[in-house]
Structure formats: structure tokens, C-alpha cells
């Protein structure tokens, strides 16, 4: 069983990380701010200008520790890649599956079924928790509509039909999602549709940032298992696009990222002051907000839940890893279907 090891997030600009013995030292203005033994860490997530010493870079590449640089808003900018490794036979199986229309469709369908079921679950939970009869009714109705879309998935004969169903469901979902927010928080987080590049309201800025964090974990999970994160099934292949990581992310958007965003808002852990507005209408988390979100995400990753397929207790942070393994099993033809993660 894989152990969930910690991720070190560095958000302080111009920090310098170096290797000292078997530890990493975070240096800020020549002062040693933190020293962590490497055995606690499996990933580094670095925001903006953070430098790593060549020795540390080499060490991370050698051990397969994931190192990712994101910009302030969580957008991916670079990552460290060591020698090409992993299981070539598994990757071959992955490439064959991507060439095979039936297999591609089957994986894409499973991924979407997971995504829609999980989005539905978030709405249903919102409906259970709300006191407002009007909100409850809308949430239940949307959840039903999305449920209908799930039933249409097995009938969809090609990827375009699947993507159409996904688009419709996503629209329905995001239209109703604000109703999961507590009424008093809605003024601070006005939100009516999903927008990005750049996000134009606080809620979009928040979920975009969370998606970026989960995506980098999905990508690392795929790489650890030995799959190629760039060759996706639901997402088309494009240069530089981590299509398979995006496929994997679909199952986790609602239960991990959206749910966490809503919790942070409903508990008042985030407020308007945690966001900055830029010229041109872009809205971004500021330094304080970003730290709150990262800390909450890390805590969430430590929480144990029972995995519905594996029937064992797993920390949330290892869910992408578990799914990557299930996908690998399917690609190797050890099992007949890929089973997506279904959140309870």
C-alpha cells in the first residue's frame, strides 16, 4: 500500500530550496526557515519564483519526487522530469487502448459517469443541508436532471455525444451550485456560470485554483503508476496538454475541489478580502487566501474515507493514486471495466 507522504508548498517569492544531507532546507533571504527530511516528502509545489539548487533538482529527478511550479493563480508553468521511467509495457497498453475506439469510449464513459454522479452527490448534499425550500427544490430537480444524463451515457455511441452530455450537465450543475452556498455568503461570492482564463469572479478564481492543485496531484499519481499523463481518452491529445491527468481530474472536481470550496465559503474561512481584482476584470486569490486554501486542501487530503471499490480506508490524497492503479489494471486487461471513483 502506498503511503501518503507530505507535499511541501512554497508560496514565498524568491525562496531558495537546497539539499542538505538527506533534508531540504527552505532558505528565505539567507535564513533557514524550514528543514525537512526528504523521507517525509513526495512532492514540491512551488509558486512563482522559487529556486531549487542543482543538487536538490538532481535528487528529486532521481527519486521521482514530483516538482511542479505554478504561477500565482495556480496555473501550471513547469515541472521537473527525470529520466523516462516507469513501465513501458503499461504505456504500450495505454497507447493501444487509445487507438482502439471501443476502449477509448469505455474509459471516457466511465470517467464521465463518475464525474456526473459525483456532481449530483454535491447537489444532493446541498439539498439535504439547506433550510430554504426553494433552494432545496432546485437542487433536487437539477440532481435528477443530471441523473437522467448519467443514464444516457451508455447509449452515447461516440465521444462527441459524450462530450455533449457532459457540457449540458456541467451547465446545469454550475447554474444550481450557488444554492449550496449559505445565503449570507452569496453576496461575497456572486457566481452564475463557470469562467476561466482568467476567472472573473471569486468563486471561479477559487475553484480554478483548487482544480490546478488537484490536477497536479492527478498528474503525479499517473506518473507514479507509470502511465503517460499526456495520452488521454476523454480529452483529446494536444501538445503539452496533460490529457489523461485531465481525464482523471474529472472524477474529483466536484467531491474534492468544489466541495472544499463550498465548505471554505460556508464556514467563513474565506471572504472577499482573500481575493484581489486585476485590471480587465480578472479575479485572483491573494497571498493570504492562497495559504488558507492550500492549508485546507492539505488537511482534506489527510482525511480518511472508505474507498467504495477497494473497500479499505484511504486518505483523500491517495484517491487519484488509487484510480490511476484501477486504470492501469483495466489497461492491462486484468479487469473488464474501469470503475470511476464514486463519492458517497
Amino acid at each position, binding site marked *: 500500500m502506498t503511503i501518503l507522504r*507530505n*507535499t*511541501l*508548498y*512554497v*508560496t*514565498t517569492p524568491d*525562496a531558495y530550496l537546497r539539499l*542538505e*544531507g*538527506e*533534508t531540504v532546507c*527552505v532558505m*528565505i533571504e539567507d535564513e533557514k*526557515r*524550514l*528543514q*525537512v*527530511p526528504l*523521507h*517525509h*516528502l513526495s512532492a514540491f509545489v512551488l509558486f512563482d519564483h522559487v529556486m531549487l539548487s542543482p543538487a536538490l533538482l538532481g535528487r528529486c529527478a532521481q527519486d521521482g519526487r514530483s516538482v511542479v511550479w505554478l504561477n500565482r493563480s495556480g496555473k501550471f508553468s513547469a515541472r521537473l522530469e527525470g529520466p523516462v521511467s516507469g513501465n513501458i509495457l503499461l504505456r504500450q497498453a495505454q497507447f493501444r487502448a487509445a487507438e482502439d475506439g471501443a476502449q477509448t469510449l469505455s474509459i471516457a464513459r466511465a470517467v464521465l459517469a463518475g464525474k456526473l454522479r459525483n456532481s449530483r452527490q454535491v447537489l444532493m448534499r446541498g439539498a439535504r443541508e439547506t433550510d430554504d425550500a426553494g433552494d432545496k427544490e432546485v437542487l433536487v430537480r437539477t440532481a435528477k436532471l443530471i441523473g437522467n444524463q448519467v443514464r444516457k451515457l451508455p447509449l452515447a455511441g461516440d465521444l462527441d455525444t459524450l462530450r455533449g452530455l457532459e457540457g449540458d450537465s456541467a451547465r446545469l450543475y454550475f447554474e444550481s451550485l450557488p444554492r449550496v452556498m449559505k445565503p449570507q455568503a452569496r453576496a461575497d461570492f456572486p457566481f452564475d456560470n463557470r469562467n476561466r482564463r482568467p476567472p472573473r469572479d471569486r468563486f471561479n478564481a477559487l475553484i480554478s485554483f483548487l482544480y490546478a492543485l488537484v490536477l497536479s496531484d492527478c498528474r503525479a499519481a499517473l506518473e507514479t503508476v507509470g502511465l503517460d499523463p499526456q495520452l488521454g481518452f476523454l480529452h483529446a491529445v494536444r501538445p503539452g496538454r496533460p490529457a489523461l491527468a485531465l481525464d482523471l481530474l474529472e472524477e474529483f472536481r466536484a467531491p474534492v475541489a468544489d466541495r472544499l470550496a463550498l465548505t471554505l465559503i460556508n464556514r467563513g474561512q474565506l471572504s472577499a478580502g482573500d481575493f484581489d481584482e486585476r485590471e480587465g476584470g480578472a479575479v485572483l486569490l491573494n497571498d493570504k487566501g492562497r*495559504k488558507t486554501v*492550500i*492549508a485546507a486542501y*492539505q*488537511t482534506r487530503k*489527510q482525511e480518511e474515507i472508505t474507498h467504495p471499490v477497494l473497500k479499505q480506508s484511504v486518505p483523500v490524497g491517495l484517491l487519484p493514486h488509487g484510480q490511476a492503479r484501477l486504470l492501469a489494471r483495466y489497461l492491462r486487461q486484468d479487469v473488464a471495466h474501469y470503475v470511476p471513483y464514486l463519492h458517497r
Partner: protein
Amino acid sequence: MLILVSYDVSTETSEGRRRLRRVAKVCLNYGQRVQKSVFECKVNLAQMETLKAELLDIIDEAEDSLRFYRITEPLSKNLMEFGKFKAVDFEDTLIV
């Protein structure tokens, strides 16, 4: 598991002072310094064995002493801390 490593290394000779520095360096690879010659290390059994072997290679058993304590979980019950130094929990959120 959390272990506590504490040591006394004789600093009479330059050889002893060298051992002292090397012991501290090895301990840092596994945990953090909580007092001058006391380290807290969160390790598994295998890591504890390697740590022990590495330290035994360095110290001179005729001159120095080395002690390992294993702290039972839950740490919140069995570990109390007072004073100005606060240990970092390496398994908690790490943001700088």
C-alpha cells in the same frame, strides 16, 4: 512512529567534536533538533534501524552514549511541549 534520539558525545578531543557534529548531521536527516542533543524523528521501523546503524558507526561506545526512546501514540497525550521552541510536525501542512 515518533522516536526520540538523545546522545552525549565526548568533546574532549577534536575527534570527539567531529563525532558530535556527524551525529547531529545524521539525526537531522531523519528528524528535527528539539534540544541541543535531542532529536525527534518520525520514522518507520526500517528507517529507525538505518538511523541506529548509521549512528553506531559514528559514535565511540567507550566514550559516548546514545539513547533511543519510542513514544507511543497518541502523541497528543504522550507529548507535552512548553517554552519558546515549537517543533514542526512534518506530517502536517507544510507551507512556507
